[in-house]
């Protein structure tokens, strides 16, 4: 009994640690004062102003767009890559994985600047350059999530299906795909998370006038953040909460559990 409650307390403390700052930001988004140190009463004002500010709304759409598109393309490329790498010999795998690790190991700022230096030679910076950069640092997360699932998947069943006359595509869909799907999904979510949270790479690869939430917050950081930013972040957080709740407890998740 004592142990159980000790565990509960520990768990509670860790969650408090993780969610306390988020609580603060949500509270601030309802604070009727521009200063972040005084409580000026409850207001929905920042939420209203948020929707009438064209620059913030544009940054919001850009953020969503970059996050979704980069995660999607990275998932597609990464899953194929994982399938290919899995079929390679040990040496080839080592080389591919070594290179894949680079974006994870480099400081973000180095990744960002090196990409900018490269882009400048060939094209103008714009939305596409940000997208390419995000896809690049997202792919490793997909590969590293899918590959272990592939390794765990039962190759013999797949081979057997082929021997029994299934086409490779059909056998893949029926046997491999269900086994790697959780890895693909988590790679996708991880990509979205990383993409959403990125600042350094975006800052260097974006074209003029393009802002994501992160770059906007960064330039405002020094002179005080507009409270609308807290409001917008709260909204984004709630969207994520709903999305992830749905993924976990929604109808499809149930089905998967019953498998």
């Amino acid at each position, binding site marked *: 009994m004592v142990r159980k409650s000790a*565990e509960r307390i*520990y*768990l509670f403390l*860790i969650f408090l640690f*993780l*969610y306390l*700052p988020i609580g*603060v*930001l949500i509270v601030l988004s309802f604070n009727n004062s521009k200063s972040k140190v005084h409580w000026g009463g409850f207001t929905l004002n920042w939420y209203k102003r948020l929707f009438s500010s064209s620059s913030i709304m544009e940054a919001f759409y850009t953020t969503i767009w970059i996050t979704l598109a980069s995660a999607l393309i990275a998932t597609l*490329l990464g899953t*194929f*890559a994982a*399938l*290919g*790498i899995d*079929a*390679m010999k040990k040496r*080839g795998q080592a080389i*591919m994985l070594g290179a*894949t690790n*680079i974006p*994870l*190991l480099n*400081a973000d*700022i*180095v990744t960002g*600047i*090196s990409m900018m*230096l*490269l882009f400048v030679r060939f094209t103008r910076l714009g939305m596409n350059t940000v997208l390419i*950069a995000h*896809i*690049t640092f997202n792919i490793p997360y997909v*590969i*590293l*999530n899918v590959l*272990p699932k592939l*390794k765990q998947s039962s190759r013999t069943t797949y081979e057997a299906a082929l021997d029994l006359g299934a086409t*490779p595509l059909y056998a893949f869909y029926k046997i491999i795909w269900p086994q790697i799907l*959780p890895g693909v999904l*988590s790679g996708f979510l*991880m990509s979205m*998370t990383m993409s959403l*949270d990125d*600042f350094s790479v975006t800052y260097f690869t974006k074209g003029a006038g393009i802002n994501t939430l*992160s770059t906007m917050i*960064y330039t405002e950081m020094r002179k005080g*953040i507009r409270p609308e*930013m*807290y409001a917008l*972040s709260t909204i984004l*957080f709630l969207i*994520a*909460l709903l999305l*992830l*709740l749905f993924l*976990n*407890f929604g109808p499809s*998740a149930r089905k998967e*559990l019953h498998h």
Partner: protein
Amino acid sequence: MRNLKRQLLAGPYLLWMTGFILLPVAVILYYAFTTTSGSFTFLNISSITFSVHLKALILSLKLALICTVICLVLSYPLAMILNGMKTKSQGFIVFVFILPMWMNFMLRILAWKMLLSNNGVINSLLGTLGLPKLDILNTPAAVVFCMVYDFLPFMILPIYNAMARIQTDTIEAARDLGAGTITIFFKIIVPLTMSGVVSGIIMVFVPALTSFAVSDLLGGGKVLLIGNVIEQAFMQEYNWNLGSGLSFVLMIFVIASMALMNSWEDEGRTGVW
């Protein structure tokens, strides 16, 4: 034959990788080994031995190490507790730890700054309870605190995943053979979660070593890490050669520490999810 065809699936990625991963690294290497006028030099690399840079590197290594140890100490029991809860959905646990990242990183750090400040919520709370003030803002302690906050999920999740994979049969069998709780822990649980621990260590240590934003925001400008030196070289001093040279050195450190960790455990790593 079939294998070769499957390998081709990695083709698009191979192109992508060459263009957007390897080529940029080549660019950095070029800058690292040249002067502003383009002639060859070792000076950017060797400048790591300048006392300021060396000091910054050592401080970074120290803080990253402390951060990693704290994360590990916090995460291991947590993973055991989570594993013992027998939740229906493993995904749910993962989700709880990833969710905070959907609030912008800089805003979260800023929130900690408000919480930890002299007249912040935590200190007024401690004050009313008659406890001494927590005066860590603008010190390396605050930087470590926030790094732990930021990177903790990357330690918890791999360990938890590795633990969740241990078959209860294995433990039952050991118990039937007369092994005590302590024996089971050291002989079964620890070795079987080693892969998770290793990936956790790498996923915490590496970003902690290269980070600059946390020390910028919570160190009060008094904590100079190697990440800050690099960031300043690129952003403030417009000295991309120096920045690239130091990044290159940092990369070597990162790769060396990874190789070290991997030689410890070559079973492969356990992912975050």
